[in-house]
């Protein structure tokens, strides 16, 4: 008996099996923007956040530095301890704040004594307390002071006080004999710096594959170091260059590697395995290695699929469950340094651009603490350009030698790889430290 119901099923199944109908011509136009919409421009926000962090750290360092410098190195007059009530001459006019200008230089700018109102007593006040006399003067004669007069234990730091036009008696040999001569200006600095570096990348593409690859890659702790030269253009600005070596890399998790595949390799390919990564495609360079991806089917391309070759049944030696991708660069920087604080503990802002030349590119798996080279990453740009922004702290041990400490954020302008759709912009944060010598 014929199953007529099933019969009509077959008629429709076979009849419609290969049926095709062209969709309306504009159907694709609505799909196109919908697929693009999940790409979010978060990169700008992340860069801004990172710069904000650098500036916040810098500001804290600056505040700490200025406090420390006040205690360590303020150049000051010693007032005779016997004359607690000794008055200091304060001019009524031509008075202005002159912070950080050495007294020696002021001597040459003195005006005639007759123009200066002298002998107005200024009682020694507590820190951050303005003399009431000064307030009276201001009330009677208009604005004369725009700051506070500081005193601590009868020592008035000139850099914080209102020197302006001082009583010439103050420049008597008794006062100025301890003033050091202006040191010879040293134009050049050479420094040796080294830093551990945290390295990661901004994913500016947000496509499904890149996001998946990013989630399977972890940055390994990297390092950077080298020699820097700086030339002082003026009191504030210097230009800095040098030569740095930096090493950075990724751990590709979930990819197990085995050695001993040479005995089973029956192909004549240049490489048996390709591994897709955010920095390019890894090509195995030896036929002795076998790779298998435990967590994704997309990353590895090979002819030796699991239905063709089962590594568990072969006599292979297990190496590791991840690969490490390593890149080394020689960096030629061109930085501008601006000196914010020029004291015993100095503060600089450093920024500029660098050219990074790829000098080493390896992929390896770890074996008993050693490295088993698997291959190299193809498609990596031989030159990467990076921008840097940092805050340098400089503690001067002597006139020539300083200890440097530079938290630095570095952003790579071009991605490491030019592969389509893999726009990962690496960035790094490191704290460079080392010694510098001025000459």
């Amino acid at each position, binding site marked *: 008996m014929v199953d007529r119901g099933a019969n009509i099923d077959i008629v429709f199944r076979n009849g419609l099996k290969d049926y095709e109908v062209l969709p309306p011509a504009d159907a694709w136009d609505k*799909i196109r923007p919908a697929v693009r919409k999940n790409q979010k421009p978060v990169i700008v926000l992340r860069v801004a956040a990172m710069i904000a962090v650098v500036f916040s750290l810098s500001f804290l360092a600056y505040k700490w530095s200025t406090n420390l410098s006040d205690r360590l190195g303020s150049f000051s007059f010693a007032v005779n301890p016997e004359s607690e009530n000794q008055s200091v001459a304060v001019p009524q006019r031509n008075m202005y704040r002159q912070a950080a200008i050495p007294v020696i230089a002021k001597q040459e700018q003195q005006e005639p004594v007759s123009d200066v109102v002298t002998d107005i007593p200024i009682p020694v006040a507590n820190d951050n307390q303005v003399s009431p006399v000064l307030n009276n003067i201001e009330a009677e004669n208009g604005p004369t002071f725009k700051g506070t007069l500081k005193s601590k234990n009868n020592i008035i730091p000139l850099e914080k006080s209102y020197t302006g036009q001082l009583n010439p008696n103050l420049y008597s040999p008794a006062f100025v004999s301890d003033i050091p001569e202006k040191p010879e200006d040293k134009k050049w600095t050479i420094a040796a710096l080294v830093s551990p570096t945290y390295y990661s990348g901004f994913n500016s593409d947000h496509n499904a594959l890149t996001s998946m690859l990013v989630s399977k890659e972890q940055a390994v702790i990297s390092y950077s170091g080298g020699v820097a030269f700086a030339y002082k253009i003026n009191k504030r600005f210097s230009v800095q260059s040098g030569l740095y070596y930096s090493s950075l890399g990724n751990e590709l998790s979930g990819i197990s590697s085995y050695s001993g595949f040479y005995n089973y390799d029956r192909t004549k390919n240049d490489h048996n395995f390709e591994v897709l990564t955010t920095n390019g495609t890894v090509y195995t360079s030896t036929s002795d290695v076998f790779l298998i991806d435990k967590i994704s089917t997309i990353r590895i391309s090979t002819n030796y699929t699991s239905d063709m070759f089962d590594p568990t049944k072969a006599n292979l030696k297990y190496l590791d469950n991840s690969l490490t991708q390593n890149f080394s660069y020689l960096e030629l920087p061109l930085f501008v340094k601006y000196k914010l604080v020029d004291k015993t503990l100095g503060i600089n802002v450093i920024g500029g651009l660098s050219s990074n030349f790829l000098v080493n590119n390896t992929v390896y798996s770890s074996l008993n603490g050693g490295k088993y080279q698997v291959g190299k990453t193809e498609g990596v740009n031989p030159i990467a350009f990076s921008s840097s922004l940092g805050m340098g702290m400089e503690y001067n041990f002597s006139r020539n030698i300083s200890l440097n400490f530079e938290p630095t954020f570095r952003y790579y302008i071009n991605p490491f790889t030019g592969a*389509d*759709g893999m726009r990962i912009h690496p960035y790094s944060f490191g704290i460079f430290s080392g010694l510098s010598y001025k000459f």
Partner: protein
Amino acid sequence: MPEIKNIIKGCLLGNRRDQELLYRRYAAKLYAVCLQYSGNDEEARDILQEGFIKIFENLVHYKYEGSFDGWVRRIVVNTALEKYRSKHNLYRVDDIDQIPEQNAEPDNEDYAGLGARDLMEIIRELPPRYRIVFNLFAIEGYSHKEISDMMSISEGTSKSNLSRARVILQRRVGSYTGLKKNLING
């Protein structure tokens, strides 16, 4: 012609050219599926567009196990089901439950004259739930248990819907073949 694996990889990278290549390669085949599951062209077009967006979004989960054709087809069928579920309360199938079964089955040889276009036209004339159940059972190969889960109906309802769908189709096929014979014979 580029290998489908390379196209998929390009799509995963967000490459517009590869996305369009994938669309061009499967659009006609999948649009036919959309027509098969929908009552009108506008709905079919919506299913196609939503289906392709889901395909691109879910490509990263494709494991290269089984055929890619089958995978994209399943996504489009599921999209059609979602579309149906979103508006199923707009349709009533009870109205056509009284269709007589007698003399509905044409002879086997009568099927031979029907082209895919005729079959498509016939299947799209089914009431929505009958059409969905028939497609899922007869074309996609799902069991009544699976269909009942997918459509939130009982297995009995699924069987009943299938049976009634077959009756309607047999009758329509008979009408088509009769009409065609008359046209040919003058």
